[in-house]
């Protein structure tokens, strides 16, 4: 099942992780150093972000580096634009309905 992206970015730690790796790719240990939490907790956050494809992993030797999927962040904005368009369509339909009712009353 697909994870909810909005839920993924609703968590403050995950938002901080996104902000951190937006600047440069980092290993889980380097990321964990920035938080008052266990390496396991950070790994779990990274797993959720990876499942939503908000971050990607790259193997360099024995280390895994995490970086931001810029396209995915843009995709969220695209979804919202489409959602906005649906509301616009719907309201334009209501405009017609309202003007028809007003005409019929006269």
């Amino acid at each position: 099942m697909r994870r909810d992206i909005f839920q993924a970015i609703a968590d403050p730690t995950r938002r901080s992780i996104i902000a951190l790796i937006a600047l440069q790719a980092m290993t889980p240990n380097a990321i964990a150093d920035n938080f008052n939490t266990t390496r396991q907790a950070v790994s779990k956050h990274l797993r959720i972000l990876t499942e939503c494809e908000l971050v990607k992993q790259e193997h360099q030797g024995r280390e895994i580096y995490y970086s931001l999927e810029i396209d995915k962040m843009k995709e969220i904005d695209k979804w919202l634009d489409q959602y906005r368009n649906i509301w616009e369509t719907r309201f334009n339909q209501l405009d017609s309905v309202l003007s028809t009712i007003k005409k019929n009353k006269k």
Partner: protein
Amino acid sequence: MNNNLLFDFTVDKITRTVFINREFAAELPLVWDAFTKPEILDQWVAPKPWLSKTKYMNFKVGGRRFYAMVSPEGQERWSIQEYTSITPKINFKMYNAFADKDENPELPGSEWEYNFSEQNGITKVSIIIKNESLARMEKMIEMGFTEGFKMAIDNLEKLLTTLSKK
């Protein structure tokens, strides 16, 4: 349509709250009816060519609207709206959830709040939708895509007819 009417749409991604403001060139009682009477709601709430079909609607606190969005192929997507607060011609709130055809809700849903105000014959409606899930938006968008696709096909047909007459 009148382009001077306000329409704004903002989203707080962090709290997953959608804010919509729209003005309508009609007096408040009529706009209120358009949002609270099933026979008018069904005329505009589904993005064409989808249809809205209200099975029943009991607009009072604790009452429900059980309705479906029907695709051009006849596929029905059922939802339940439960009214949690109503102040006539000013405000109402509801809880909205997808459901199956037997009225079993798919939780969690989203919380909706509508506010109405009128100035000089122009009625403003403000809508706040809390915790709208991505899954829900996807379903809505899917309908929008169908609409866009249908329009594209219709336009293509018109174009082809025009071209073939030449």
